[in-house]
């Protein structure tokens, strides 16, 4: 009896994590480039009820009669499916189509992101520097920050979708190639990236080293679409269905606890 109490409790705990995950997905339904997460469940260990078991005809079976001890959350996996491309007015908005990540720098640390909601900041030299909304500087393929003179027209910054090459128009209206290309990296196992919040990821032992898209053999290169942002890939309908399932599963496990408790109570009341 105590066994079923704990099994049901493990089920409730698992569903709680599931609901937490769903709630976080729903909260991020409008977060740029957010990737849906889902919980993976596994069975807990099995215990032997009867070492020698027999089938319905009374013939002995080779395996023992076993009972499982519940469930646990094995992992929370991110679904990296492409989000929608959402048009914006901003010249510095960029959407990655493909599996790449932008590299952004915070003083000396490099993080990776798919959130291309960039903006201009003015640095000490008076140049315009491409940064994220939080001020992380976007890196080019040489690992430098992307800077253009502050005299460059706001509306004339351009990014080549295939190569990431940046250009701007000078005061005379001529197109000037900066020679800087926006860097995109991929990861062997992007599910293994560490999430650090603010739409940023860090490389980890599980994700592997960043692979530069422009000079790694065999990598399918991504495209950068200027004037677009990548929407969250949360599917609200899916999440709602999952929420209902999780809530019902939670409820059922709690019913199992109540039932086990009632049975335990009856056992206790045998002696009046």
């Amino acid at each position, binding site marked *: *009896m105590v*066994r*079923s109490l704990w*099994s*049901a409790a*493990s*089920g409730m705990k*698992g569903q709680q994590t599931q609901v937490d995950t769903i709630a976080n997905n729903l909260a991020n339904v409008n977060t740029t480039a957010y990737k849906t997460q*889902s919980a*993976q*469940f*596994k*069975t*807990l*260990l*099995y215990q032997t*009820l*009867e070492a020698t*078991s*027999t*089938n*319905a005809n*009374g013939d002995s*079976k*080779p*395996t*023992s*009669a*076993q*009972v*499982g*001890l*519940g*469930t646990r959350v094995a992992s929370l*996996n991110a*679904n*990296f499916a492409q989000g929608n491309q959402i048009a914006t007015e901003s010249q510095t908005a960029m959407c990655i189509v493909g599996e790449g990540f932008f590299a952004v720098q915070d003083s000396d640390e490099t993080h990776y992101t798919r959130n291309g909601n960039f903006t201009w900041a003015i640095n000490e030299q008076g140049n315009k520097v491409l940064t994220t909304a939080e001020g992380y500087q976007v890196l080019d393929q040489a690992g430098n920050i992307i800077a253009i003179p502050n005299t460059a027209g706001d509306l004339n910054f351009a990014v080549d979708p295939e190569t990431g090459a940046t250009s701007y128009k000078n005061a005379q209206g001529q197109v000037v190639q900066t020679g800087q290309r926006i860097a995109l990296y991929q990861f*062997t*196992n992007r*599910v*293994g990236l560490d999430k650090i919040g603010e739409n940023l990821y860090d490389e980890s032992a*599980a994700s*592997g080293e960043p*692979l530069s898209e422009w000079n790694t*053999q*065999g*990598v*399918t290169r991504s495209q950068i679409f200027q004037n677009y942002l990548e929407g969250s890939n949360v599917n609200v309908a899916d999440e709602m269905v999952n929420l209902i*399932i999780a809530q019902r*599963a939670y409820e059922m*496990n709690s*019913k*199992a606890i109540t*039932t*086990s408790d009632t*049975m335990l109570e*009856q*056992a206790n*009341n*045998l002696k009046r």
Partner: protein
Amino acid sequence: MVKGLYTAFTGMVNEQKRMDVMTNNLANSATTGYKKEAMVAQAFDEKLAIKIKDTSHWHNMPEKIGSISLGAKVGETYTNWDQGAFQVTDKDSDVALGGRGFFAIEFTNKAGETSIKYTRDGAFTVDVDGYLRTSDGDYVLNSDGALSSQYGDGYRVQIDPVLKYTIASDGTIYQNNEEVDTIGVIDIDNYDYINKYGENLYDLIPGGNIVESEAIVEQGMLEASNVNVVDEMVSMITIARAYEAGQKMIQTEDSTLEKTVNTIGRV
């Protein structure tokens, strides 16, 4: 009379165990590839009841009065291998099996001992070296490893981690239209020889044999648990009521006993 008490008691113990098994199903209603289980009760061997030393009878010999069962015990825990529904995940490394079959896993326990286990949970990932691994980090075996029950380098599924890949319905992995490796899918000739380990894994015990599987491998999907919660709720009610009846039985037997001891046997 005391015999009746025990019979009712074995019934209650059985219902309790049935409840344990059923609760495990409910707890695993969201577990990938989980197969629901049920407990089958088995009556104890019937005993011949004999009336002995009936002094009223002239020859004073034991007399057979028929057979009686002294209750029930756990017969087996039966696994329902019905196919679970396919859930679309759009993750390249997720695979689901349609039909009879298992993936073979090179499982390493906490003590560092390695053995082969089987699973229908295809929530895999590709690691930085290109090895296909389970969510707990165990290696997935290729067709050579799965069929020959060998593991280690060369028997693990490995692909080029950089390139895109597609998995065909027979488990073959293609990169750049070339065959690179095959996910091993096997079947077991007699499911009576499958032991549950937990962690979504099964053991094959001696006597059972690995055979080729005709299961279809579906990429970008996972197999959902085949627990039907409505069925489980109904069986939970049945169990609770059967348990209650057993309890009533014991109380009735007890009050009869009480009468015998306190009312009839008053001195």
